[in-house]
């Protein structure tokens, strides 16, 4: 692998940038691998990378029906935070946060992780009580957090309407300074390049059409480029997970919904943190390029169409303009939708299945991006050892029958 550095950039500039290598190979599928990862998004690529790096399992294929990082990895609003309420999810997202903090160096790829802080606004007394409870829980779990009053919020974000005149006045917020944003595409590309360098085969345009199962043990996958064998298969297919599970005769407690996001025309720097509000229902940050990146809730109906409805966009922008009257005449540049697989308790599923060797990593719903490194790390450990990693164990699919749900509707809420 060609290492990237400032010196290298100068060297290549002097050679008119003609010496750059491709970031990863485009191999033909081998007939057999030790592990197959279905789905070449951030989580799948991270899983493959950690399998190779931490567990020495390099005979791995990532099977992707489209191109790498072309699904929800390319469509999210890039927010990274770990201020979840319950111990189980706090452990999972904080595990990811710790990886984020060294990720650019580890991958030798600038993922543009910017710890600019995240505000979760409270607009009612109950909001403030919930925020206080969540921040206290976070601090007990070693996660940074502060409760701010309206003045504190105003001093962090001078352009926000924190006055009493607002229809839903801002009463305060929770503030996680270590949270922030990362460059979504770079995360997928960085993991892809690093995994490829360790020998992982990234098979793009390879669609899984079925699973090979014999005597309750996974044997491999059928694809449009022929059958590929493996005794361990990890399925990391986000919105399509129910369809994949159906191919294996399994049922998952997921519903796939469209989730929309939009970006404005580029503006001069105006917002240097991330602002989210569960109550008026919207979240916003400004990218390094200057666009306002805006998102909100899912469309309520099931859908696989990768597009959403206008009423949802309208509702989102109402919330943004409510918080930031200054943005009322900003023009929006692009709008798109991704398909998120939501779970009844707003927590992911990292689990074995009744088919031996077949694992699922799904159900991240609206907030999977922030967990990419942590999810990949614990899922890789689970695939390598055949036992779920202690951080992943509470997220077993069994919880929907045992009743041990992890209700994160509060922390996941709208604020993804």
């Amino acid at each position: 692998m060609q290492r990237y550095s400032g010196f290298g950039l100068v060297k290549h500039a002097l050679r008119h940038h003609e010496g750059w290598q491709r970031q990863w190979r485009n191999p033909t599928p081998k007939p057999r691998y030790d592990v197959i990862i279905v789905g070449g998004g951030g989580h799948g690529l991270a899983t493959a990378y950690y399998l190779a790096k931490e567990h020495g399992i390099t005979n791995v294929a990532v099977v992707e029906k489209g191109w790498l990082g072309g699904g929800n990895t390319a469509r999210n609003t890039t927010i990274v935070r770990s201020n979840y309420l319950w111990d189980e999810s706090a452990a999972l997202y904080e595990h990811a946060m710790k990886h984020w903090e060294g990720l650019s160096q580890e991958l030798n790829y600038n993922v543009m992780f910017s710890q600019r802080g995240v505000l979760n606004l409270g607009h009612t007394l109950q909001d403030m009580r919930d925020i206080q409870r969540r921040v206290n829980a976070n601090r007990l779990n070693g996660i940074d957090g502060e409760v701010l009053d309206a003045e504190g919020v105003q001093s962090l974000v001078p352009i926000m309407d924190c006055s009493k005149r607002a229809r839903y006045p801002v009463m305060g917020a929770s503030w996680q300074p270590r949270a922030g944003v990362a460059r979504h595409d770079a995360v997928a590309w960085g993991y892809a390049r690093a995994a490829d360098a360790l020998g992982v085969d990234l098979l793009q345009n390879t669609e899984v059409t079925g699973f090979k199962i014999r005597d309750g043990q996974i044997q491999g996958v059928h694809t449009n480029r022929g059958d590929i064998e493996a005794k361990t298969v990890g399925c990391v297919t986000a919105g399509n997970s129910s369809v994949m599970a159906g191919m294996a005769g399994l049922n998952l407690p997921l519903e796939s919904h469209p989730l929309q996001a939009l970006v404005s025309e580029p503006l001069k720097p105006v917002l240097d943190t991330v602002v989210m509000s569960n109550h008026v229902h919207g979240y916003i940050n400004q990218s390094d390029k200057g666009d306002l990146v805006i998102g909100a809730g899912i469309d309520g109906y099931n859908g696989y169409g990768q597009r959403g409805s206008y009423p949802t966009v309208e509702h989102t922008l109402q919330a943004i303009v409510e918080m930031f009257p200054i943005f009322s005449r900003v023009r929006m540049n692009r709008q798109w939708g991704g398909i998120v697989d939501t779970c009844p308790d707003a927590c992911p599923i990292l689990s074995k299945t009744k088919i031996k060797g077949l694992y699922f990593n799904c159900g991240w719903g609206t907030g999977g991006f922030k967990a990419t490194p942590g999810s990949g790390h614990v899922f890789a450990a689970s695939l390598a050892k055949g036992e779920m990693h202690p951080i992943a164990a509470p997220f077993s699919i069994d919880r929907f029958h045992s009743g041990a749900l992890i209700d994160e509707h509060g922390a996941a809420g709208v604020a993804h």
Partner: protein
Amino acid sequence: MFHIYCPYCEELREEEEFHPKGQAHIARPEEPDTCSDEEWGDYLFFRDNPRGIHHEMWLHAVGCRKFFNITRNTVSYEILETYKMGEQPTITAEHLAREEKNAREEKTNNAQVAEGGQQTVGASDAAVASVKGAQA
């Protein structure tokens, strides 16, 4: 934007008047106390999530405030029918699969004709070759 026909109001109304309420036709177990954890969990949490035909409940929230059912395609988002609570859908995935199969059979017949056409092309190629051979 959906344009939804409410079977109670008997009018087409805009999507914003309605709320989607999830999968339709889920029967509550008659004896919840005798359910196993498996059955009760399935009833509470496990839903159909098809890529295609989906039967779902909607609420006409700012209209008649009644629940009704919609058969909808989750990929094209096309609404195929709406019907009242207690009624059964007339359009189902099986029903459409059958129609598609019939259409495919018809297409296969057409394709055979096309193959016949191709044979003619083959023949003309052979003819060209023989002409070339004659020239050589």
